[in-house]
């Protein structure tokens, strides 16, 4: 695999030189492989949003570098807009950024800024709308007539329409009802599977991350607490809990079973995984 994004010893300090000075990101390094689905998890205030705003150059590092395809994104500050088209960032509660008269025009804002016109523009908009599950009849409506979940899809489409190489999502399901969450995540999963775009998903729901990510980055107080595959991370479930973070529900069940003396491996994060373990135990004539 090859690396698409690389973060090197990134530090960001807010309000330097005032009584409110504080580091929101401290000495963070990691790499993102092309096509991977990376989950970033951490408490509110652990620095997730600050970190990802560096990836498309909205924030400038206090120290450290961000490399996109091997090139420092701040090498040419005048061209930072190009980075923003390549690393699409969807903010938390993105529906509050909608402003156009119609859904179509709002989705077209990004690709237009990119310089797309005519058929290319139309194609980009319609394709993005389709990817997030918006129907054609929605496109001519005012975005303000739509439901909360639909507004969010419009905002997501507005970034997808720029056809970024990396898609960064900041808590895309925050504030949606369970059905809306699952729906949107299914869209994002399909998008990842079909387009092969690299995705970074920020969330504070362990279950959401566990179900979707190939690799997980756990942030705590502005630093990386752990990183690895879901199995590697959830094998350290006790540490996560001690740090005040959650583990997926099924990992919790496995940990409880183990504490009662069953020889289960708690590094499991899907129902199927635990089921397989328990069946194996049963067949092996264990105490189950």
């Amino acid at each position, binding site marked *: 695999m090859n690396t698409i994004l690389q973060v090197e010893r990134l530090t960001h300090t807010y*309000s330097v030189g*005032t*009584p409110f000075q504080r580091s929101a990101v401290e000495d963070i390094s990691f790499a993102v492989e092309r096509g991977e689905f990376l989950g970033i998890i951490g408490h509110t205030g652990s620095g997730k949003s600050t970190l990802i*705003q560096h990836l*498309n150059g*909205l924030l400038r590092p206090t120290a450290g570098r961000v490399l996109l395809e091997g090139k420092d994104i701040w090498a040419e500050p005048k061209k930072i*807009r190009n980075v*923003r*088209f390549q690393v*699409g*960032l*969807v*903010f938390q509660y*993105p529906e*509050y*950024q*909608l*402003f156009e008269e119609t859904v179509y025009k709002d989705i077209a*804002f*990004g690709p237009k*800024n*990119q310089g797309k016109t005519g058929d290319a523009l139309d194609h980009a908009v319609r394709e993005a709308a389709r990817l997030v599950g918006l129907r054609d009849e929605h496109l001519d409506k005012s975005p*303000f007539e739509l439901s909360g979940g639909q507004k969010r899809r419009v905002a997501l489409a*507005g*970034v997808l329409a*720029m056809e970024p190489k990396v898609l960064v999502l900041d808590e895309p399901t925050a504030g949606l009802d369970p059905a809306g969450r699952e729906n949107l995540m299914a869209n994002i999963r399909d998008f990842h599977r079909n387009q092969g775009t690299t995705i970074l998903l920020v969330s504070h729901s362990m279950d959401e991350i566990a179900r979707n990510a190939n690799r997980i980055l756990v942030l705590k107080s502005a630093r990386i607490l752990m990183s690895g595959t879901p199995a590697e991370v959830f094998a350290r479930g006790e540490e996560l809990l001690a740090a005040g973070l959650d583990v997926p529900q099924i990992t919790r069940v496995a940990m409880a079973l183990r504490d009662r003396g069953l020889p289960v491996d708690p590094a499991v994060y899907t129902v199927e995984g635990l089921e397989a373990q328990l069946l194996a135990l049963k067949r092996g004539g264990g105490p189950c």
Partner: protein
Amino acid sequence: MLKDITLGQYFPGNTVAHRLDPRTKILLVVLYITALFCAGSFAAYGLMAAVLAVCVRVSRVGLRALVKGLKPVLFIIVFTGLLNLLFTPGEGILWAWGPFHVTETGLRNAAFMVLRIMLLIMGTFLMTYTTSPISLTDGLERLLSGLKRFHVPVHELTMIMSIALRFIPTLIEETDKIMSAQKARGADFESGNLMEKARALVPILVPLFISAFRRADELATAMECRCYHGGEGRTKLHVLQYQRRDYAALTLGVLILAGVIALRACGL
């Protein structure tokens, strides 16, 4: 960043300057401004600057924060200064070029004008830095309560003011967020001519207004749910009461004003 704007920002603390009754502080600022307009000599301005310096010292507000408050009005200060410097007629022309001429009177006027604006702004900011918006409007309401007899809706006006003050930081934060979100979609606020720059503001202003209206609506509902119905018959949790330090501070303020007027009368 927009966040760096300090507009009526309150720095909590527990100094005498913080503990004074808000009414006292408002009255002191009024006295200070009056004194500034009475001042007509370097001696008087020196006195005013010294008074401010002592107040800053007592309040423990950093001088840097106070100077930062001047930044947004820097243009006005420079502009007024230049206007006075270049266009004041008078004797003793030091330099002239076309319609511009620098005179001794002009030099003096410009210096006084710049000093006056700077001291005025810093003095007012010192009050907002040491008084929370809530107690400030509380004090204002009490001070103006006499106007109720003339059917001035004092309570409603001060309520509007305190809500506005309360939401300034929120709106600034929101503007920051919306700007970032639109920049992430390639919005460009820096380049282009004036017309293009104005048009680039639409993607910020529309969401900002929508959210401001939404907030106003939610706030109104929340207030109604708690049976808010205006100022009539409303009692206060914290009833303002002048203490000995308030009388002392006000006496001092009046004395300083008298001093400045005396300086002027002596032709100093």
